[in-house]
């Protein structure tokens, strides 16, 4: 079994495994938002999982969720430089996020809140102007709803729906205008959704959420 050294600590890894999962299993925390263990590459690019690896005496910046472990590789997950880049990445993510935790169905189980506290940051960006886009909630589906203003474009729902052979959700547009949406913005209820709710389960934020938490689920 290959082993690697993260922040000076030697840990075991599966052959071919990505740095991120090996680290997490050994109790070394690396922030991450868009990575999925079932996928080779993340769809989004949150860049929260940045680490430095030593290659031939030089340090290189890589994303831990996509970089496979090499035997005896040296990884630095918490250098000052890395922390700084992560904080910038997180501010960027939060700069178009509708921060409304009080009314958010995910407030008790939100990856953004967890990430902010692990980075010792506030949810509200300090160095970037926040610009929440004028997008509306799709609550056409009886069981769940989608608030694009809380989507961080991690792509987990896209990958999940694709993995199930449906691909009803996808990225559209680009740059600041990028959104995750259905074909031609069809309402979820008429998008061909078969209500497996897997996308809701993987969404790290309050973007995809169950309408009723407990109670009448078939109502």
């Amino acid at each position, binding site marked *: 079994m290959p082993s690697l050294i993260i922040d000076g600590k030697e840990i075991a890894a599966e052959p071919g495994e990505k740095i991120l999962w090996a680290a997490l299993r050994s109790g070394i925390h690396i922030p991450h938002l868009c990575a999925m263990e079932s996928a080779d590459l993340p769809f989004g690019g949150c860049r929260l999982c940045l680490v430095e690896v030593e290659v031939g005496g030089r340090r290189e910046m890589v994303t831990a969720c996509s970089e496979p472990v090499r035997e005896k590789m040296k990884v630095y997950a918490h250098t000052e430089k890395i922390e700084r880049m992560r904080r910038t990445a997180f501010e960027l993510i939060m700069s178009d996020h509708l921060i409304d935790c009080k009314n958010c169905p995910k407030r008790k189980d939100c990856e953004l809140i967890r990430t902010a506290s692990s980075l010792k940051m506030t949810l509200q960006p300090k160095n970037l102007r926040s610009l929440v886009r004028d997008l509306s909630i799709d609550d056409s589906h009886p069981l769940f709803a989608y608030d694009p203003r809380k989507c961080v474009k991690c792509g987990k729902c896209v990958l999940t729906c*694709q993995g199930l052979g*449906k*691909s*009803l*959700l*996808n*990225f*559209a*547009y*680009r740059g600041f205008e990028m959104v995750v*949406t*259905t*074909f*031609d913005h069809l309402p979820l209820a008429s998008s061909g959704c078969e209500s497996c709710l897997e996308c809701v389960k993987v969404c790290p934020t309050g973007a995809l959420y169950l309408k009723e938490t407990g109670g009448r689920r078939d109502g």
Partner: protein
Amino acid sequence: MEESKQIEEILRRFHPERENLLPVLQEIQEKVGYLSREVMESVARFFHLPPSEIFSVVTFYNQFRRKPPGRNPIHVCLGTACYLLGGNLILDAFSRELQIKKGDTTEDGNFGLESTACFGCCNVAPVVKINSQIYPKMTPGTVEEVIINLRDKNKKG
């Protein structure tokens, strides 16, 4: 009917391989003018791709439009001369006034908004062309006027 024939004809000349997706979309748009929901669906079927992926590609590129150009397609020149004299401000003004983005058409199908390269009348830049008429020396202020006049004309005609 005519339209779906044209599309069939285009598709017939291509293999349903991913690398042909862009050329197919470009050709359809050139022939038909825009990529409607139905067109995107046929293209998806042809390539055996999920429709959401076609939508992803179509919205990624500025060159594609998903609505007919509108009865009054507004072409704002962003050629060098016009650009330097604030062509993009004119575009923004139209965009604000009509509440549509570049490449879009108003709900009522009345106006479409487009940017283009030099019309060859740089001496009166910045220039806008609507229904083959040139509007010289535009300012953000005259944008509203132009739209009001066109709306009136449409009501009468």
